[in-house]
């Protein structure tokens, strides 16, 4: 039964124009679609092909290509397979259409992506702050956000020989490997 449905889905998607379908494994299907055709495809998947569960929307920042890649993961309980619909939108101005009318949970994912990547979803019910309630910087998951520079600007580093460490050293403890000799030290990376 499941196999039949899978074959049926494959033939259905193969007949659609303008999309590229690749079966990555027995239960996973990757679909690449143009951004203007994505809502129609999701409508089709949900309405006609039993993909009623939108597990997640993920976003990838392809900064060199100047694009955001949005991935809609849809799961079907009948066919028991996952269809990942990939689409790319221009990084500037980073505006896309909401799929809230097709999948209700999309509201949360879109709110999250708006917060982390700054993508504006037209028609999403609420794009206010979600997790980073006090954040006033740029969207932090963008590739051009320099987290280390932000940290240097907003926080002080721990002194490597604070007073309380002297107590430990008198008792025989302390830092075993000095910061300069550590394998993954920032300073070693800077020098090379």
């Amino acid at each position, binding site marked *: 039964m499941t196999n039949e449905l899978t074959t049926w889905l494959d033939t259905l998607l193969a007949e659609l124009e303008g999309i590229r379908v690749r079966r990555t494994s027995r239960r996973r299907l990757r679909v690449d679609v143009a951004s203007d055709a994505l809502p129609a495809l999701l409508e089709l998947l949900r309405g006609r092909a039993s993909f009623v569960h939108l597990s997640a929307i993920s976003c990838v920042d392809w900064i060199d290509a100047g694009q955001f890649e949005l991935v809609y993961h849809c799961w079907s309980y009948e066919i028991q397979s996952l269809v990942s619909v990939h689409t790319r939108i221009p990084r500037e101005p980073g505006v896309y259409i909401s799929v809230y009318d097709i999948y209700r949970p999309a509201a949360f994912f879109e709110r999250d992506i708006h917060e982390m990547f700054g993508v504006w979803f037209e028609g999403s019910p609420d794009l206010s702050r979600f997790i*980073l*309630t*006090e954040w*006033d*910087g740029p969207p*932090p998951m963008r590739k051009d*956000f320099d*987290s*280390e520079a*932000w*940290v240097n600007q*907003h*926080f*002080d*580093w*721990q002194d490597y020989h604070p007073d*309380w460490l002297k107590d430990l050293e008198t008792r025989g403890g302390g830092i075993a490997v000095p910061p300069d000799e550590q394998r993954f030290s920032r300073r070693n990376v800077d020098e090379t």
Partner: protein
Amino acid sequence: MTHIDQVPTPGAPRPVEIGVKPGTKRTNPFARVFDELVRFAQSRSLFMLHYCTGCGAVELPPAMTSRFDMERLGIQPMVSPRQADILLITGYVSVKTLKRVILTYEQMNSPKYVIGICSCTVNGGMYWQSYATAKKLNDYMPVDIYIAGCMPRPEAVIEGLRGLIENIRTGRADAWKDYYRRYDHYLGNQQRLFGADWQTPTDVIAEARHYDLFGPATLGAHTALLEQHQRPLEALEMRIEIPELMRRRSRSDQGGTAQ
């Protein structure tokens, strides 16, 4: 004549004198003995509020329960900050959590002790370049003891707690006084993260006066900024809004009039 107790010894930290305001003359010859007794009693009955922010929390159940048994040291978990002596921060503190940690800390009664467990509270640990994680806990509140490790084993936790007990017994665990003496410094660091309108419901400056710990560094540029932005606290409005209950009540009212 100056009593020998009032002469501060240079270099050595001054022992905590419980219940005695500096400047008052101590006439009781047994005062020192009594202080020591009180400190001993205090160090052997500690109630701990563990604010489990990160992964270090998983080391606490074994430290508390039968295997390592924290209670033999007189340390018990406590559910509310008002009744707790120790605030245990286990792991990374995100900026959002830090707000809650500070609120919790300020609600605790003095003397209060803060223990930072795990590398993350010391220097950010593996989250050193994360934009959302505070790096040094002692920038925002005075920390008595750090227990480093990622994560420290229950033995290390117990060792750290024993260190704190020893510090309390000898009167060296007085980091909490620093929060009052240098409130401006801590408030400044908090404002740097949370913005100029950051305010807590606790009036720390008044508490500093109450504990007689008001010093020249209690007030400063940052407390001035706080005063500028401070909104008076208002009591929360009590209101019951349960739609189902309201509907049922109005229905029964109507039923009553019809009959």
